[in-house]
């Protein structure tokens, strides 16, 4: 089994899947599909963790994989979908720049990351590609946050950033101590819940969840 994993470079395969789901965010218009793509991204992340746990036989990585799956793969998507229904907004996401351009830009981002981290200072354990991919996912998440108008898409961009960050931490050090993973997940969960509450409040107070309306405070 372990040989099988290495022969078919399953780890690279899955991490490319993580990258592609992040890139796909740029081409999506419906909020529900954004949530679905995020769910897929989280599932792939936990699968990758589980496979590495199997390869090196670390018990605490199994726990981390299960925790990631429970929170990012199940709890958060369910919560996000409820908010999508509550603000009754399923239609277009209306990015500031069109899909073709934003796809191109995220492609360029990936290229830049690969070029700049090729001979880096990091020697990572199990795959050369995972660190590059994780940094690319962080940048794409940031890019989504900058270019999208809806409050909820900003939250999803933030969540992509966090997934990329988890992947980065994972590829650098085979995961953090369990207490740290727990605390970070808990913080993230709380943060998203509060952002969700604020999303609904923004919709109520400004009668729209467009962040364009949030420009009163200046100077």
């Amino acid at each position: 089994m372990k040989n099988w994993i290495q022969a078919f470079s399953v780890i690279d395969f899955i991490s490319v899947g993580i990258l592609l789901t992040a890139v796909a965010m740029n081409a999506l218009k419906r909020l529900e599909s954004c949530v679905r793509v995020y769910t897929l991204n989280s599932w792939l992340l936990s699968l990758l963790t589980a496979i590495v746990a199997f390869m090196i036989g670390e018990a605490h990585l199994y726990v981390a994989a299960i925790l990631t799956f429970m929170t990012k793969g199940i709890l958060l998507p369910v919560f996000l979908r409820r908010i999508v229904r509550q603000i009754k907004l399923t239609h277009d996401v209306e990015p500031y720049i069109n899909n073709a351009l934003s796809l191109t830009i995220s492609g360029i981002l990936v290229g830049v990351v690969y070029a700049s981290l090729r001979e880096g200072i990091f020697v990572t354990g199990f795959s050369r590609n995972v660190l590059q991919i994780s940094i690319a996912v962080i940048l794409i998440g940031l890019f989504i946050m900058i270019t999208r108008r809806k409050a909820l898409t900003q939250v999803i961009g933030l969540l992509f950033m966090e997934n990329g960050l988890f992947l980065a931490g994972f590829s650098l050090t085979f995961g953090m101590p369990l207490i740290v993973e727990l605390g970070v997940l808990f913080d993230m969960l709380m943060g998203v819940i509060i952002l969700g509450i604020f999303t609904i409040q923004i919709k109520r107070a400004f009668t729209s969840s467009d962040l364009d309306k949030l420009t009163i405070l200046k100077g």
Partner: protein
Amino acid sequence: MIEILLIPVVTAGICYILPNTRLIGYVSAAGTVVLSVLSIPTIISAISSPIEMLKGMLYMDALSGYIMGLVIFLGLASAVYSIGYLEHELKSGLTDITWIRRYYALLHLFIFTMLLVTVANNLAVMWIAIEATTIVSAMLIGFGFRKRALAIEAAWKYIILCTVGITFALLGVFITYYASAAVTGTEGVLNWTALRGIAGRLNPSTMKLAFIFILVGYGTKAGLAPVHNWLPDAHSEAPSPISALLSGILLNTAFYGIMRFVSIVEPSTGSGFTGNLLILFGLVSIGISSIFILVQDNYKRLLAYSSIEHMGIISLGVGIGGPVGIYGALLHTLNHAVSKPLMFFASGKIQSHYGSTRIENVSGVLSSMPLLGTLTFIGTLSLAGTPPFNIFISEFTILKAGVDKGMWLVTGLFLLFAVIVFYGILSGFGKMLFQSAKEQNIASPETIKGNPFPLDFSSSGLPGLLSNAVMLLMAFIIIIFGFTVPDFIDSTIKNCINILGVK
């Protein structure tokens, strides 16, 4: 040490279930009094020798004790001030009992998360605590958000910008963990005490990268320009007691994270790298905020920009480094943590009296409310850096450190910006204090009926007396520290300098 962390949580729980507004207020104030009294022995023993607990997860030394003391003092001040403030908001119909319960519960949780930052030894746990302060305080900024769209806008900006910033800080923590694993050969370490032991052997270029991420991440939270954009909105839209906490201590807990990192990055990279970055961020913060202070027409935003300026000065002090620079920075932390909350408390009262946060709508504060006016005047002079008040002393110390090291350009720019700030703050608050009162602005008995803001709460009953007492105490500290730094503070700061390993 555990009891110090538990008290705020218990108080939060009690506040959440009590039925009556005033009762909740007094219970919350009593909770902070108990916290202050019980924490004194722990802080004193931590200042003389470090304490470790829970297998080294929690750790307290002079620096933790120093910042913790400030958190507890400001928590007390803000809980006492909140009683009158919230009763006033309730009377004005801006909030209701459900929200008041949530407010007090969140206030104490906020204090708890800040205390956790100061005692966390594990750098990742410190990160978790700093992120938790963002989450809790975002709810406090949006307090009563059903009625105020602006507060939602401010809270949204705050939580999004700070979370993104702090995400980068976590990457910095990961990189540090990676660097330490390369040194120990097996598992990495994250405890500050352990990292300090191996700090000299960490890979310099890895640590440089880590420090850049940490500085940008925690710098966002500490309000350093150019990543400060959330700060003026959050500080001006939050309820006044919360603005006081945000400005007085929240920024400092984030900067405390940076200081802990400086002490483990410096041994491997040399002090030039971290120092220059901190000086750069500091000067940019002072410069940008000085311009915004000059053109500001909203006094709460003016105070917010002044916070950016003072965080910049603290960063400059740590950047210049050496015992004198660090001494100035730590002293400035305390001075700013006393002067700025006083001003936010005062501006809360001014806002409730005049019903506006614009400078042009406020005039004659000194003649219509002598006590409040005098306190505001003392605070203004202190913030502007006028001798003989406290902030002048610490700014002068930092300036002296710069001159000693021959950094003429840095000190020159600092002086120039300080002059601009001096003019901006004095002219803004000078207008409000001394300009003769315009008729329509005075809340005389006839105008109260139509005024959504009933007459100021500064003089009404016990809550008013208590909040005045707190403000008088702060003004007293401002004046005392202008003449002399008390011995126990002096020795505490010197212990902090030893702990940070500054030579």
